[in-house]
């Protein structure tokens, strides 16, 4: 809604757009209290916001300038209502979301600020929700969002999604933001739960809108969408009934979402065109290799290691190296895996990442070094960021005792 209203009022009136949405929600609270919640609450809210927008346009069209390219159409009663109706059509709103998504991914804004903005403006997350998703204080997130919004409002114009050159130039930043948003939901650092469904689903919703746009349908977009589907399909197996994490080895693979898997594979095929091979392609391929195996033993580790090798050449981060080492241990045994783990470049950056000591522990355990394994899991436990992680490492520690 904010995206649609910002399109109407102009990006310099972002605050006004937010006020109108706020008013619509307040009005809903008042009216619904007496008359009950209407059959279609979101349509009701949309209609209220639309009427409120009309009021604002009529009252203030002489005092303020709105979206400059629409100015003349708002000035006359001949065109005011039809124009507003058109701007609130479902198709137009999708375009607005896309426009806002690209506007939020401005190079001047830091990546965390871009994601915070997207969550706040496009997904309607409150400052508190964003703060808890990113393990940040309310004040810090509020400051970040306020500053980012000022930057956005100063940019005078919303991003024009119809200019192919600009679109392709900004697309990687949008991919990156959606990728980070997805990851934050999928294995983020949240304190309450290991998987934040609302975060990764928002990423997938925005992704679907991007895929509908003719300029958005690039191989990289398809690859990223495939990656999201293939990972999301495994969520039901990853978390057991009591909300606990279970490792890839012990997962009940029959619980994986077959529809999402099929969609993921289809998207992967669509991504396999053009000369550009992105990190999303590789990550999707790795996810696909896991998804193909009906049982753990059927996993094609050779392919997975070689995919990680390629990924290391494009995006050599310690996390990628960590995952590569785990895959290598599957082929060449825990000793080789441990050697790989302890030779990861920049591994100091993993110092607070619980799954680094956990991986060490897992491999030590596998070669029978229970005492050392327990120490590693203890270190992981100390770094655990939420309850499911905590329980997961506890359970690994007790596994060390049994052997």
């Amino acid at each position, binding site marked *: 809604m904010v995206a649609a209203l910002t399109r109407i009022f102009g990006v310099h009136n972002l605050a006004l757009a937010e006020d109108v949405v706020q008013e619509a929600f307040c009005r809903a609270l008042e009216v619904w209290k007496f008359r009950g919640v209407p059959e279609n609450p979101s349509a009701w809210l949309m209609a209220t916001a639309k009427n409120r927008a009309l009021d604002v346009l009529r009252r203030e069209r002489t005092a303020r300038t709105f979206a400059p390219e629409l100015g*003349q*159409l708002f*000035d*006359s*009663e*001949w*065109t005011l*209502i*039809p124009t507003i109706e058109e701007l609130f059509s479902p198709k137009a709103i999708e375009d607005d979301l896309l426009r806002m998504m690209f506007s939020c991914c401005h190079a001047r804004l830091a990546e965390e600020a871009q994601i915070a903005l997207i969550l706040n403006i496009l997904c309607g997350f409150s400052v508190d929700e964003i703060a808890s998703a990113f393990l940040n204080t309310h004040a810090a997130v509020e400051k970040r969002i306020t500053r980012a919004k000022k930057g956005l409002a100063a940019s005078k114009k919303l991003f024009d999604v119809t200019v192919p050159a600009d679109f392709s130039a900004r697309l990687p930043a949008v991919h990156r933001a959606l990728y980070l948003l997805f990851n934050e939901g999928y294995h983020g650092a949240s304190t309450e739960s290991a998987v934040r469904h609302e975060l990764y689903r928002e990423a997938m919703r925005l992704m679907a809108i991007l895929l509908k746009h003719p300029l958005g349908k690039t191989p990289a977009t398809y690859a990223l969408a495939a990656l999201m589907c293939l990972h999301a399909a495994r969520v039901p197996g990853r978390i057991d009934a009591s909300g606990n994490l279970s490792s890839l080895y012990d997962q009940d693979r029959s619980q994986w979402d077959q529809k999402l898997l099929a969609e993921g594979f289809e998207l992967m095929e669509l991504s396999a065109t053009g000369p550009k091979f992105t990190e999303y392609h590789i990550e999707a391929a790795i996810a696909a290799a896991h998804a193909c195996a009906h049982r753990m033993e059927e996993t094609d580790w050779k392919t997975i290691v070689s995919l990680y090798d390629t990924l290391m050449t494009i995006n050599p981060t310690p996390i990628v190296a960590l995952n590569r080492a785990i895959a290598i241990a599957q082929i060449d045994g825990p000793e080789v895996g441990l050697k790989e783990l302890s030779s990861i470049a920049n591994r100091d950056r993993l110092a607070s990442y619980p799954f680094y000591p956990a991986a060490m522990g897992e491999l030590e355990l596998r070669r029978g070094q229970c005492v050392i394994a327990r120490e590693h899991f203890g270190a992981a436990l100390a770094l655990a960021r939420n309850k499911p992680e905590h329980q997961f490492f506890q359970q690994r520690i007790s596994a060390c005792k049994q052997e």
Partner: protein
Amino acid sequence: MSEFMYLFRGGDIPASPEQMQKSMEKWVAWFKDLGATGHLKDLGNPLEPTGKVVKGKQKVITDGPYAEAKDVVGGYTIVEAKDIAQALELSKDCPIFDAGGSVEVRPVQAFKL
């Protein structure tokens, strides 16, 4: 370039909301065309069919309508054109003709000092 006012007269009022919407779309499309070719000076506004008239030295107030339905002014718009011939030409796509109405094209008088 000179300015001309279009006075839209008469025309059937759409019977159903669907027809109303269709008619609105046609009008918006026409206005957008005028705007796109740079001929639109002021979109003007539609007018209610009724109102009041103040008349004479006594300023007597009487109710409308003031004429037969086909002569009632339903709205106005100001365009820019190089001469009246062009202004007439530009008016020919106006949706009011579909509804049986008319467009009166009047040059805006530019007073000289």
